[in-house]
């Protein structure tokens, strides 16, 4: 994968990875013994953590309440909010 060029592109990558996590997570709730789905889930979970860290480094925290660090200054309340498109 080539490096992301902008915020939108990195966000889209996070949305794609997290959507895979949502869908696989729901599937695993009713198919907990599917080892292939479990391996896929763990793989995207690691990729999501990496991509999220890269995003937060450049564009600020995706979560409050101690879930993400806000380096140097408090950036949680910076715009844009997700519905401001």
């Amino acid at each position: 994968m080539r490096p992301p060029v902008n915020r939108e592109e990195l966000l889209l990558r996070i949305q794609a990875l997290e959507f895979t996590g949502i869908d696989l997570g729901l599937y695993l709730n009713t198919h907990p013994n599917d080892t292939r789905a479990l391996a896929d889930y763990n793989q995207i979970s690691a990729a999501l953590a990496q991509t999220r860290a890269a995003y937060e480094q450049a564009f600020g925290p995706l979560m409050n309440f101690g879930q993400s660090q806000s380096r140097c200054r408090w950036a949680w309340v910076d715009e844009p909010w997700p519905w401001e498109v």
Partner: protein
Amino acid sequence: MWVYEKKLEYPVRVSGPNPKLAKTVITQYGGPDGELAASLRYLTQRYTMPTSQAKGVLTDIGTEELAHMEIVAALVYNLVKGATLGEIKAAGMEGYYADHDRALYFVNGDGVPWIASYIQSKGDPIADLHENMAAEEKARATYEHLINLSDDPLVTDVLRFLREREVVHFQRFGETLNIVHDFLNCRKVW
């Protein structure tokens, strides 16, 4: 507890102000088969589910529905954001405007406010899971009606994503119903 993520589950774009479309889409915010009803239905039924798996399914789908509520809100917000009063009147949205301006409120397409009797919580897991499967099908049908009404391809794209999620949720609730059936059958004799 819950933690907010500063992102949408699926990207939202609209082609421009379109209060006429917003007036119909808002039913998935505060209508009988909308995302608020879906989320609250599952999150309140989960406490009395008999198996750990079923509690997990209702917790997770109830949580995803909250993300869908935010997506619908983002659609409505952006469809009325730049609309003129003339456009709002032409869309038949002046009654809504009188009470709410361009703010979000939980109503259906005709302005009827959300009520708790849209949902049930029976304490009987078989009854509750059947209600949830029906709710997913009703939400799917509503999204299909909205897709038929949509004249904005960007909005239609988002509505298609939300429709597809209802299909997946229906499938997962059906599997959960089987799991709960098996559990109850080996524990109870009537």
